[in-house]
């Protein structure tokens, strides 16, 4: 192993750990909140079973606004809110707050889009069989959209990694922050390249896993 990696091993491991915490919470928020939100967005659209123009427009606008913030500005803008929730605006825990917010907005949009790809006839068949809203979602929509949902989560996860790299500004740490502070600011260019290399491997791994899983799930 290159000497520089051995020298900084504890810091590197710590920064990888921080990245995993930040990205992990983002994924958790995406699945637990983004998935239901995206589904609700879809169902509130015109001609859908929960059609509600007011609710749809409001949520749609909210998701768009969050996603149009340059992420760095969202982090700064949210500082008061973060402080309210975590008690501090500094550190890895505080960094997860803006990350989960963008994660929810990001994934909910991708969920809505994968649901829009389902042929209209599937919904008609579900309704004609007397399925309830809950049954329509779990026994029809998620069954037919499952590979799209997995691919969406893969894309989202990779974006979350990218977002997490700038969390150094609020002391969030992570691989990106390490690469900037040690690699760039202390002129250890080789260290920076190694960090980028780790990120590339990580992203490749996630993309490969996501695509393989999606392909396995898709029988259409």
């Amino acid at each position, binding site marked *: 192993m290159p000497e520089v990696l051995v020298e900084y091993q504890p810091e590197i491991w710590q920064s990888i750990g921080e990245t995993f915490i930040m990205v992990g919470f983002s994924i958790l928020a995406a699945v637990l909140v983004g998935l239901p939100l995206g589904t609700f967005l879809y169902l509130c659209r015109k001609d859908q079973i929960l059609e509600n123009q007011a609710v749809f427009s409001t949520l749609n606008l909210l998701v768009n606004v969050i996603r149009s913030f340059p992420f760095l500005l969202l982090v700064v803008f949210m500082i008061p809110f973060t402080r309210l929730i975590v008690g501090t605006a500094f550190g890895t825990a505080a960094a997860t707050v803006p990350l989960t917010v963008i994660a929810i907005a990001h994934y909910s949009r991708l969920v809505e889009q994968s649901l829009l790809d389902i042929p209209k006839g599937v919904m008609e*068949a579900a*309704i*004609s*069989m007397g399925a309830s809203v809950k*049954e329509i979602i779990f026994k029809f929509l998620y069954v*037919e959209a499952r590979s799209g949902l997995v691919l969406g989560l893969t894309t989202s996860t990779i974006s979350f990694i990218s977002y997490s790299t700038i969390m150094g500004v609020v002391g969030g740490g992570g691989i990106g922050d390490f690469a900037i502070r040690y690699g760039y600011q202390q002129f250890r260019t080789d260290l920076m390249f190694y960090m980028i290399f780790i990120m590339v491997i990580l992203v490749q791994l996630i993309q490969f896993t996501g695509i393989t899983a999606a392909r396995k799930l*898709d029988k259409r």
Partner: protein
Amino acid sequence: MIKIQNVSKRFGDYEAIKSVSLSVNHGEIYGVIGASGAGKSTLLRLMNLLESPDHGEVIVNDDSLTRLKGRRIREARQSIAMIFQQYNLLGNKTVYDNVGVPLELSKVPRQEREDRVMESLQFVGLDHFKDQYPAQLSGGQKQRVAIARALVNQPKVLLCDEPTSSLDPNTTAEILTVLKRINENFGVTIVIVSHEMEVIKSICERVTVMANGEVYETVEIEPAGIQKIDRSAQGFVERLTHGGDHHA
């Protein structure tokens, strides 16, 4: 038994159904024919409230669907099965699981579900295909899976929306034979919407001809009736479509 009373339905400014009344007898095979845009599919979709009417009443199996809400309407729909031109199967479920869906929705225990799914698949002759996915089947086979799925909950009424319009003549004949057997063996009331006179003639006892959202006429299909349809209705339908609706 199905009763449609003074039902009308608009989509925006477009009047799809204009105060239509008709009734389908118990155990009958009933046809609805007309050019595209005549309102025949909308009429069929009113029979399970896939479309809800703006005015009028829809009564199926003695339930006034237009007065039911929520859970009650969903329960009523479980005895009104429907098949579609595009089959509308779940591509990510096997043939077996597709057919089992209505039983899952009506909370039938797993053991009984298995027997009934296999029974239903045997009826349409696809029990050997139970582990395949719809993408591996031909159009006719997909429609037979859809029929098995429709049958599995022992419906009283079967609504068919252009069930053979994506199929070749041989497969069409096969599907019509299956529908006829369902009617004869289980006494299921069947309503078929089609733009193909051949389909209607070969299976229906009565047919309603629709044009511009209205009932043009309803005729019995007996030998004499066929003549009558041939002369008036068929000609009428063809005139409306200017001799070529680009359908087969």
